């Protein structure tokens, strides 16, 4: 496995879609397990 900066950069570069899914799922988990009890509108 290469440790060059370029390789590290390409490894860490997730697509916008993937970031959106990960953040949304993390938020859903926080709500599900009671860390965020309620989101008002």
């Amino acid at each position: 496995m290469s440790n060059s900066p370029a390789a590290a950069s390409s490894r860490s570069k997730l697509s916008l879609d993937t970031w959106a899914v990960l953040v949304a799922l993390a938020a859903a988990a926080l709500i599900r397990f009671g860390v965020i009890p309620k989101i008002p509108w």
Partner: protein
Amino acid sequence: MADAIVLPQNPPISLGARFFRLIPGVALLAAIGFAGKLLEKNINAYSKANHLTFPNIEYVLWAILIGLVISNVFGLAEIFKPGVATYEFWLKAGIVLLGSRFLLGDVAKLGGVSLALVIIEIAGSLAFMTFLGRLFGLRPKLTSLLAVGSAVCGVSAIIATKGAIDADDEDSSFAIAAILALGAIALFTFPLIGHALHLSDQAYGVWAGLAVDNTAEATAAGALYSDAAAKLAVLTKTCRNALIGFIVLGYAIYWASRGQAQNVTNKAAFLWQKFPKFVLGFLLVSVLATVGFFTKDQNASLANLSRWAFLLTFAGVGLRTNFREMRKQGLRPFAVGVIGEVAIALFTLVLVVGAARLFHF
């Protein structure tokens, strides 16, 4: 669909610095969205208290209008641009969270009808836009970009296709400008047409999802009608988005066969790369909601969080719409876009009205 969050890379800056550069723009999105919400609430309260007849203007429209004024009258300062560019991120996160409002049975039923309509819409739109492009003598690759942008999913589809068929930057700029301009027009015309024709929330939502090209504008056009219409617009648009990989692959193979694009060696990897991952996130949250993973209150919180995410998106739609920039792109691609979009809007309206009678929605 698979655009990475790209910030200026020269000179290289750390992840932390890149994160901090997003804050002013995201704060601006939030401030505009919240101002839209406050305006709706306060104007309604004032009208009621003073017995005035004032049309109910939804927060969606206020957020878009405030964004449009800032972008077109004052211009958007550089410091806000990286954060404002995250509006697509909020859109996709919002769609994933919206999955909590769909039980899997609804997705299968409504999604099945939507998918059938989407396939008809895509085939008709691709054929018609290709015909129009040839009729107006547009460059062939520009015609391909406009056809994909109109048929599938707007800017994301154009960017994905541009890379796959080695199109010029100029062609993709033309196509993106035309699609964005038409999306802005659709935002204001679709709700008026829907109300004039007394379309049901479901029929209107499916129509907006089929005929409005960019996902952000399709969601906003749905939300301007009603919450229920926004749900259906997102579901239908998600069906369109899910097909992007197949359409882009088809165009890539076509242009490669003419020696004007690189061959696609691994078709499965190509499809996965182009597949919008937020569709999978949406389905996963829908499955979790269906099996009772969330309580009723938690489902309500997820739905509210989705609305907050969309609020940032709507502010971003206004902020990134710059009519001066669009005018610079020339008239012919815009004319092809207008004729094509009007025809597609009429064609899909007939489809939806027919399907609504057949499937009773």
